């Protein structure tokens, strides 16, 4: 046997993590054995706590600690404006902009028959229910700008428009601070199509 059993187990568990191979797992394991015991215990507790205490927000399906997530609980946010994203990570990215003061709705992915994901697997029914009951004025579709995200967006738009609310899609465009010269053709083409009046 290469490692004593407890170390072998730790290496095996660590190597299951995304982006962690056998070598990295071994390095991490030996690191955890070298640091003060308190530090290793703290990591173990953090994992357990995150797993046990983080739940899904019953309203928007973001990660939450309790019934509602921090955004749904925040009374300063505009509840008539809802931004639809694929995953909770996307909320973190949008929050970093500081531009958006409405609420969110996490679909849990995008429609993709190749991966066996259809509208029923996503939280679309829940979104429609929210639109009906929460007095939402505008739904901003912020799914990823690829085929699956676009299909999901158009599908949502078809369902939501008859409910007499505004449905918008975030724009595709050029990275700020970059040069036109280096932009890829598709992005530049989209940016041209979505041009604005000055």
């Amino acid at each position, binding site marked *: 046997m290469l490692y004593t059993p407890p170390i072998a187990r730790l290496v095996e568990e660590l190597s299951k993590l995304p982006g962690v191979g056998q070598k990295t797992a071994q390095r991490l394991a030996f690191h955890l054995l070298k640091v003060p015991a308190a530090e290793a215990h703290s990591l173990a507790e953090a994992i357990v706590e995150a797993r046990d205490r983080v739940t899904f927000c019953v309203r928007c399906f973001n990660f939450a600690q309790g019934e509602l997530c921090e955004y749904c609980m925040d009374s300063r946010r505009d509840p008539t404006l809802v931004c639809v994203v694929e995953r909770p990570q996307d909320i973190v990215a949008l929050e970093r902009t500081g531009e958006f003061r409405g609420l969110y709705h996490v679909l849990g992915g995008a*429609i*993709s*028959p*190749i991966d*066996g994901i*259809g*509208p*029923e697997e996503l939280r679309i029914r829940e979104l429609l229910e929210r639109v009906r009951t929460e007095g939402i004025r505008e739904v901003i579709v912020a799914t990823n700008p690829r*085929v*699956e995200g*676009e*299909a*999901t967006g*158009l*599908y949502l*738009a*078809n369902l939501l428009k008859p409910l007499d609310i505004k449905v918008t899609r975030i724009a595709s465009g050029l990275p700020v601070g970059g040069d036109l010269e280096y932009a890829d*053709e*598709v992005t530049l*083409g989209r940016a041209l199509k979505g041009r604005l009046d000055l």
Partner: protein
Amino acid sequence: MIIAGNGRGKTNLLEALFLLIEGKSMKGAEGKEMIREGRDVAVVSGTIDVGREVLLRLAIEEEGAIKGKRRLERVGAVCFQPDDIWMVKGGPEVRRKYLDEVVMAIKRGYKETLKEYGRVLRQRNEAIKAVRKGLRGREYIRSWNPLLIDTGREVMAERREVMNKMKKGMASTGREWGMPELDIKYYSTMGDDDDGQEKIIKKMERLEDAEIRRGSSLTGPHRDEILFFLGEKNVRRQRSQGEQKLTTILWRITQARLLEGECGKEVLPLMDDCLSELDAENRRAVLGELRGWKQAIVTSTDDLPELEGTNRVWLEFEAETAVNGGQPA
């Protein structure tokens, strides 16, 4: 004018020229296939005059990788091959391929547009298969309809725009050649551009049963037809072999001219065996057209009376040395 009997390497010579200029095979061959049997590498070199002389040298290595490819901004090549006649004789998929090739050459973003449409189509076909197996309801297919229409229309709009340019160019040259009036028509399975989305969605829903039976999508640019007409007659079914060939030559020459006009390139037409099957009058028309180009390379198996006055080169070496290690013939 390159004149030589069968199997003397005329086509190989054009293939080498095309490869040098475009960096790929005119026959769509893989790198490996272009290396002579029993050899490890193939090397092509030549000089191009683009205001100044540029030496080009390109090698295909053992694994088939093409090394030394140069992206020539101002020079291009368009090649006519006898097999091109399948664009009128063959099925709609061949015509779509030929049209897409021209669109891709003059519209930079089209390759991506087509790729995106292909991805949408694959997703929708996958959805159809799941419904066919009884795993899902029809909503699963329908959720892809709006995007299929959106991306499909983008493909169609680009195709139509380029096709209209081709049509205009072909018709005008055709008139000079004394051909009956030429027309190209695009038949869309998704309906006309001015059809509203709802109308198309209704059509798609009507076709759902058939789609589920067949397991694939029946509307969209992947099913569209493009037809050539000469004086109201369908070239595919109602015109002779010679007229079919003439239509194909006209397509390639117009493609070359379009590339010059739209991309500001200087294009070299490479015409492989384009004169056979044509009568003397049509041979004169085609040669007259090619004489108007700065340079054009034409191959023929025989020396014909119409070739008088062209710069004729007879390939007289043995077939075995026809492509002699990249040395210019």
